[in-house]
């Protein structure tokens, strides 16, 4: 028992003794004792009442003046109340700081609940998506952001890649949006203004296209003169070898330039490829004939082609992608090897596969193969005469058709390149009216 409680008991004892003494002298001991106890009780009730009032209504911190055990109780409550207020203040401060920092963020943030209603957003989100920061809380985001590309993205459940689109509100503004699921079915939508990036990308693509185009005419001129000089018997005797080498290099440069042009055209094309039926069997036959006429690589080119399976896409693009894959296979396969071309249905998708028994590619290089001018090793391309852009073109063509390129390879045993086209790109008839 603490000192206070001993004191309190003493007070009570004292009160009772006083009552006893008075009762002793005046008489009616019982009545006096009763009065003493009643006084004690009233005092407690008054203090209880004050405590209750103070806890419930008082915003002030001054403790009502009292004594005895009540003073302690009031003091304890006072401490509790103060700590509580400090903690609350700290939390409010923290919350305000977080709010301020998110509001200051240049990227838009929107918190969405399970059904896609807006719970909170910052100023940037309001500005980028043309929403009203306070009033639109509780609205469904899909009702205000009605872009036909955005709604399926919001409703899908995999948000691995951000979606990028032209802003439906402000012309020339490009937005990149990504959704991060968190907590109990809440989602955070991040919106970034990528206008600058987009413009830079456009300028870069345009530069490549222009530069390639400008390089073309001088090359043609050089090529023409070299051809004429090679014809000349007199010059040939002295300059034969250098002339052949120069001719070979200009041919290669022309190939690179036209590949660069093709690539930049594919890059700037934002639309999906058209849905025109392509007779793949016939196209592959043409590619095979051309590959065999190169006089390089194996003569054993096997075709396993489903003639009743047609692809819906852009024929010249498909041709350039498929021929690049086949020519690559021919280049890296020795004359006694074989190349197998397959075009067939596989699990509902259509699959174009080129498999060779060539030198193969070490696994470390596979992810970077489709980069421009990427070489597995320097010694490899000297004699092959490729442009280094073939697989980049393949990748872009496939992206354009919603298809996926997968590469399997085992060094020393051969490689396999597969293009998998989605179901919507497949047709079983060449009839044009069906697809219109």
């Amino acid at each position, binding site marked *: 028992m603490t000192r206070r409680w001993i004191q309190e008991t003493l007070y009570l004892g004292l009160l009772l003794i006083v009552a006893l003494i008075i009762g002793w002298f005046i008489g009616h001991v019982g009545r006096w004792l009763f009065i003493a106890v009643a006084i004690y009780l009233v005092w407690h009730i008054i203090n209880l009442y004050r405590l209750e009032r103070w806890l419930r209504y008082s915003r002030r911190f001054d403790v009502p003046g009292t004594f005895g055990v009540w003073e302690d109780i009031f003091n304890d409550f006072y401490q509790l109340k103060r700590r509580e207020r400090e903690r609350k203040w700290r939390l409010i401060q923290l919350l305000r700081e977080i709010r301020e920092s998110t509001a200051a963020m240049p990227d838009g943030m929107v918190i969405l609940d399970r059904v896609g209603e807006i719970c909170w957003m910052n100023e940037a989100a309001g500005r980028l998506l043309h929403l009203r920061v306070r009033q639109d809380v509780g*609205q*469904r985001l899909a*009702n*205000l952001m*009605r*872009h036909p590309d*955005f*709604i399926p993205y919001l409703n899908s459940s995999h948000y691995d890649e951000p979606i990028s689109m032209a802003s*439906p509100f402000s012309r020339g503004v490009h937005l990149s949006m990504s959704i991060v699921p968190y907590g109990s079915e809440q989602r955070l939508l991040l919106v970034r203004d990528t206008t600058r990036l987009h413009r830079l990308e456009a300028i870069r693509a345009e530069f490549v296209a222009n530069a390639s185009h400008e390089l073309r005419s001088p090359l043609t001129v050089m090529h023409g003169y070299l051809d004429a000089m090679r014809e000349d018997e007199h010059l040939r005797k002295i300059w034969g070898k250098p002339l052949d080498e120069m001719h070979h290099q200009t041919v290669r440069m022309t190939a690179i330039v036209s590949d660069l042009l093709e690539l930049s055209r594919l890059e700037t094309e934002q639309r999906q490829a058209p849905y025109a039926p392509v007779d793949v069997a016939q196209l592959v036959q043409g590619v095979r004939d051309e590959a065999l006429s190169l006089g390089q690589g194996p003569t054993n080119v096997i075709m396993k082609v489903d003639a009743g399976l047609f692809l819906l896409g852009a024929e010249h693009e498909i041709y350039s992608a498929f021929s690049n894959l086949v020519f690559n296979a021919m280049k890296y396969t020795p004359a006694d090897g074989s190349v197998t071309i397959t075009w067939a249905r596989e699990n509902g998708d259509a699959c174009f596969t080129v498999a060779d028994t060539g030198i193969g590619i070490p696994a470390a290089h596979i992810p970077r193969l489709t980069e421009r001018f990427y070489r597995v090793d320097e010694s490899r391309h000297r004699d092959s005469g490729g442009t280094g852009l073939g697989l980049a073109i393949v990748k872009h063509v496939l992206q354009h058709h919603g298809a996926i390129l997968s590469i399997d390879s085992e060094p020393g045993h051969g490689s396999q390149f597969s293009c998998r086209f989605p179901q919507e790109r497949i047709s079983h008839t060449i009839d044009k009216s069906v697809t219109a």
Partner: protein
Amino acid sequence: MDKLNLTHHISQQFNEELVSVRNRVLAMGGLVEQQMADALRALTEGDSELGRSIEQQDYKVNQMEVAIDEECSRIVARRQPAASDLRLVLTIIKTITDLERIGDEAEKIGRLSARLAGVERPGDRYVALQHMGRHAQVMVHDALDAFARMDAEAAVHVAREDTRVDDEYEALSRQSITFMMEDPHTIRQILDVMWSARALERIGDHAKNICEYVVYLVQGKDVRHAGYEAMEREVRERPLGIN
């Protein structure tokens, strides 16, 4: 902000049906907006391929219109909605008709711009037409926003914009007549421009209609053919949130 209370029904199913049909209307609105944006881009950039591609998107809008219409009939038949629910269903039925028409007009602009892309473009690159198109586009967008937010005041504001689109149409047609008188060779081309402008003017009217439905939906008062002042008075005077 006033909102119709869509989630007050005892039947959870009914709530969900109403909310879902409303969401679908707005998704359809998004498609139509995109069509319009594409049409205007085709016109600005002289992209004939894009202009023609709008036609192919139109079937999606039509499909949605039919599906939403069916859903509305089913709600009316099965739930027999009253008061604000009935107004919502009626508003939706009317709104999708206007949206579908906007889609048709956008398709028409796309077709015309494919044709215009084939001839030489004038020095101003159809700047007046572009400006008008931008205006109509914003109107459609804001009308749909007003519908999403159930915001009658914003709806009245958007409806007022229609006079400006009409004025622009008037100015453009006067300008076109001058051009045609100056050089009769361009009549064919200018007629195409006129038809595009006409389509945009119609789009503005459809957007205005949607706004009037929104006022009806929120206030329960038909403000068609009432004039803007009457509309505004109506919105201001009526207590909000009636049933």
